[in-house]
């Protein structure tokens, strides 16, 4: 039997009073009229980020360790550079997030114990994949079953429809963008 050596051994540990700021992407859910907006992790079935409350990391191995643990992949993920998020699956919202508590810094980003968005903006995920943050502002937000909200630019809405991804309803992106910021009490992302 091999004995696993923790990665935490040999890692520098520092103490700070300033939260870390990093990039993060979320998926978005809400009612068909655009009410009850909720930021959700893009992957897995993790808990949503509730408005006006700090998000707290949890791990399915919670009985074994708290999150984030150096030897696990748990924690609230965020990245140093916005372009790292272009590989994210189906992002609807891009933002700057404050992280605090126990934070594990990685080569390309962070895993944190606590977090809250500081700036958010809706993105057309297809534009974002192709061109990054610039030029990814959506025109409409499609409402899908299970309250999934997906922002699109017009050309990519047409492309999505050709592949059978047709929203049940379309809402103006600028109104949902404003409502999202009001819901979370945060500022707009500077484009």
């Amino acid at each position, binding site marked *: 039997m091999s004995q696993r050596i923790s990665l935490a051994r040999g890692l520098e540990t520092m103490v700070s009073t300033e939260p870390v700021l990093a990039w993060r992407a979320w998926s978005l859910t809400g009612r068909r009229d655009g009410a009850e907006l909720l930021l959700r992790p893009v992957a897995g079935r993790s808990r949503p980020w509730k408005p006006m409350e700090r998000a707290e990391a949890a791990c399915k191995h919670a009985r074994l360790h708290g999150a984030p643990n150096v030897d696990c992949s748990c924690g609230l993920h965020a990245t140093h550079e916005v372009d790292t998020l272009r590989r994210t699956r189906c992002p609807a919202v891009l933002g700057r997030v404050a992280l605090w508590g126990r934070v594990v810094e990685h080569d390309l980003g962070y895993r944190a114990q606590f977090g809250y968005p500081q700036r958010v903006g809706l993105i057309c995920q297809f534009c974002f994949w192709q061109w990054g943050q610039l030029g990814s502002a959506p025109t409409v937000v499609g409402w899908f079953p299970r309250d999934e909200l997906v922002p699109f630019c017009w050309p990519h809405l047409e492309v999505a429809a050709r592949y059978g991804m047709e929203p049940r309803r*379309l809402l103006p992106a600028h109104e949902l963008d404003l409502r999202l910021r009001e819901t*979370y009490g945060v500022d707009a992302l500077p484009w």
Partner: protein
Amino acid sequence: MNIGRPKRIIEIAPAELPLPDPSMPELEPGPAPSEPMPIEPAHAPSEPAEPPATP
């Protein structure tokens, strides 16, 4: 998402939590927002997507 290997651990105890202040005037509860006007996709332009101009 792969964020590479861990480099260091930071224990952050902020003097002030980076959460919105619920007492700020713009965050006071107001009347329920009106329902956004649904958009008809018939107005959509038919041009293909083009990359944004590079600075």
